[in-house]
């Protein structure tokens, strides 16, 4: 455990039988893996009520809004910004990945998906369109940039995959 371990078990008891727990944001690391369950429910809800295309529409809407600053950097050809972003989110998720990179590409390999792994560990079944959190989201991130996103392979049971961001003129 590091110095930012969660402190859920440390409460302060008063003599009157009143229990008080007081925390600052800086007392804990921000890592609530059950949020993966919330996203899975949201995707399933959209899938069940509006269909597959709507799941992709929703993910595109999210990606266009949330990744706007990163998309702007990619438009200028800044591949380092992408590498920094990828490294950062996987570190925050405390998840091992392997990154291979060159002047015109970044390749990311993982043995399983942190989101899908958490869902499975909690007895939840990943949404049948879970892979769209890769394909649709990262293709949208690459919109109007010199880069393409390719999900080279993806295991729908574990999320093991190889992802490739590549400059368009270098794509085979």
């Amino acid at each position, binding site marked *: 455990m590091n110095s930012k371990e*969660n*402190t*859920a*078990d440390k*409460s302060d008891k008063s003599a009157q*039988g*009143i*229990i*008080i*727990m*007081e*925390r*600052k*944001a*800086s*007392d*804990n*690391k*921000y*890592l*609530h*893996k*059950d*949020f*993966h*369950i*919330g*996203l899975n*429910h*949201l995707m399933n*809800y*959209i899938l069940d*009520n*509006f269909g597959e295309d*709507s799941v992709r*529409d*929703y993910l595109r*809407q*999210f990606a266009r*809004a*949330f990744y*706007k*600053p990163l998309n702007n950097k990619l438009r200028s050809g800044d591949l380092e910004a992408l590498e920094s972003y990828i490294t950062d*989110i*996987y570190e*925050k*998720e405390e998840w091992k990945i392997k990154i291979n990179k060159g002047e015109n590409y970044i390749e990311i390999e993982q043995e399983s*998906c*942190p*989101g899908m792994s*958490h869902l499975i560990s909690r007895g939840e079944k990943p949404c049948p369109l879970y892979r769209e*959190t*890769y394909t649709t*989201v990262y293709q949208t991130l690459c919109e109007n940039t010199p880069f393409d996103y390719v999900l080279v392979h993806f295991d729908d049971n574990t*999320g093991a995959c190889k992802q490739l961001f590549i400059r368009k003129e270098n794509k085979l």
Partner: protein
Amino acid sequence: MISCTEFIPAYSEGFKYLELKGGRQEVEKFWKKLSEGTLVNTLSKAIQKEGIKGCFTYWSHTLNEEAADFRMTLDEAKGEFRIDMFKCPSKGMLNELKYMEPYHAYCEHCPALYKPIVESHGLTYEEDMSRCDEARCSIVIRRKLKT
């Protein structure tokens, strides 16, 4: 991959998407389904097992993992549990993402999710959302007085 650390903006955009599809009632339908699908095995079980103390147990876990800035107070003798949220990590994050427009009623998902579960155990749930734009709010859960 949408990291769990990026879930809040994805959640907010999800509410916006559902409202576009079917109006506010579609958002509320989703909240009801989410509440039933996720809190029955967590918050509800905790209250079933420990009574009002289960609220303290449940939120001890989630608020610490979410790195919230808060104070929780449990007075079992009085039958009262309260959360004073000084900086909600979710609303706080949305406020900090200046380039994104959060769902206009984002904070309303909390009472929509929790209130029905808490009330199903014979407890009352009151929220004060008057300062939620500043990522501050409070909830008070009480045992009903026997008449």
